[in-house]
């Protein structure tokens, strides 16, 4: 195939303990370490490996969000992507709107394969890849853990509740990646320098004639109910009694 398109989202780094805004309007992201959504990073790694094995010519990374997303796109370029596209928008977008914007990029670039993470670790929606597939009338393989590229199709192993499912899907196709697919590479300093020279297209989300207004209202974002504070016990015997009292183990 010629091109692979990888969609990456800027999210709060997975190691950060999130804090909720006092007015319950959302989660604090100002002054917080932001990263590429870990599942999207796996998608990008897979795209790079496909290119390195000679099965693709170009890897394009695309992100939708505020100007700061350029940082994550630069990281993607440092990992090895050839060029980047930012669709700029300063407000939170629902997955359907994101998918409609991405559809425009798919129409423009005609990639043979589109890779995304199975979900973003902020809103946990797990929707965008499937929506993009339906919008483009493409096949999809979600929760993918292994991918084999054939001439006009892919063989994909999916992690489903029942075990491992194998699908064959025709190209062009959309694959969303699960954790087991690969381990993303570390970015080296010379790659960061090189990435600065790679092309980045910046577009405005408002130029696409897609309604971006939210259609579902977020009333509040609150902390989960706290767990009751625990107790410290000493040794197996005490644990045994405590678990039996709770009916959690039998004699």
């Amino acid at each position: 195939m010629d091109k692979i398109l990888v969609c990456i989202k800027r999210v709060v780094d997975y190691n950060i303990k999130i804090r909720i805004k006092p007015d319950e309007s959302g989660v604090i992201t100002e002054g917080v370490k932001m990263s590429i959504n870990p599942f999207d990073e796996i998608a990008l790694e897979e795209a790079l490996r496909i290119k390195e094995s000679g099965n693709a010519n170009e890897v394009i990374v695309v992100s939708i969000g505020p100007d700061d997303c350029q940082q994550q796109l630069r990281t993607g370029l440092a990992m090895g992507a050839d060029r980047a596209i930012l669709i700029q928008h300063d407000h939170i977008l629902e997955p359907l709107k994101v998918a409609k914007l991405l559809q425009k990029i798919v129409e423009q670039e005609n990639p043979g394969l589109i890779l995304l993470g199975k979900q973003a670790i902020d809103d946990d929606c797990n929707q965008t890849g499937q929506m993009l597939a339906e919008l483009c009338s493409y096949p999809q393989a979600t929760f993918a853990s292994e991918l084999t590229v054939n001439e006009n199709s892919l063989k994909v192993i999916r992690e489903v509740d029942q075990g491992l499912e194998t699908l064959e899907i025709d190209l062009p196709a959309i694959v969303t990646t699960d954790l087991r697919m690969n381990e993303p590479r570390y970015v080296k300093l010379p790659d960061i320098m090189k990435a600065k020279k790679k092309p980045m297209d910046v577009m405005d989300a408002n130029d696409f004639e897609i309604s971006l207004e939210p259609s579902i209202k977020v009333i509040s974002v609150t902390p989960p109910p706290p767990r009751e504070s625990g107790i410290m016990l000493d040794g197996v015997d005490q644990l045994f009694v405590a678990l039996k009292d709770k009916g959690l183990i039998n004699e």
Partner: protein
Amino acid sequence: MSNAMKIIVIAEHEDGLITSATRKTINCASQISSEVDLLILGNNTDLEEQAIQIDSVSNVLVVQDETFNQQLSAIMAPIISDLTSGYDCLLLPSTTFGRDLAPRVSVLKDVCQITDIMEVLSPRVFKRPIYAGNAIETIEVPDGQMIVATVRPASFKEVGTSNQASLNRLEMPNIDLPNHTRFLGVSSEKTERPDLQVASIVISGGRGVGSAENFEILYQLADKLGASVGASRAAVDAGYVSNDMQVGQTGKIISPDLYFAFGISGAIQHVAGIKDSGTIVAINKDPDAPIFEIADIGIVADLFEFIPEFLAKLD
């Protein structure tokens, strides 16, 4: 309730059985409206008999066709969209089946989808977890807008099976279906232990376990308790176990009745995956390990001394 919302639940079934996640989804549906229908796309008449017995269901709609021997979302979505005009709300279980399928249906309905309803506050107001359950979002769908949503099974109980719903067999809709997706097979992990996401007891190990060989003692304890075995990201990254066993924000999010954390420090990303557990027991040599802050029961001990004692006690 003259203007009650009309809801349809899309049934998930495996090996001729309607899943427990489907019956949990029906429970959620019954909290939104008293008019709940169930749609089955299958190729097995046993499903009909089971379906009409499920409580809270008014009408069971069934399409029997060999197309549904494989449950492929790209094929099912246009059929579901075609058969559900006239409904105000369409629910699927938030399993890999429902999560794969729901977004394609919502595109065909051109409405935004809701993932993981965990609580129904009113017919149009729901709670759902974000940031792996570290925050809860309360959302409202405007009047007149169709709802397409997945329902988080861990948050609802199954409805019973003492009903006698009416059964309507429907013709396969006459629409063009894609042929770009072929099912080649499914293989189950050959383990005697229960699946991490449905096990009532889970035993996890962290970096403190020290090696792949040392995990053996955790497997022994798991087999004794009928438990599943998980691991922290640190243990996976250290190569002790494969990453399908990882529990945490970037691994599996689980909610067993009883969770054991052995040699796990308690990184935020791990805790995010176990917060919904009934009782969390942490065993760690380090009295200052953060895992003790969230554990219901904490024990400062060396796991290699503790587990043999525990095993002996269970004999």
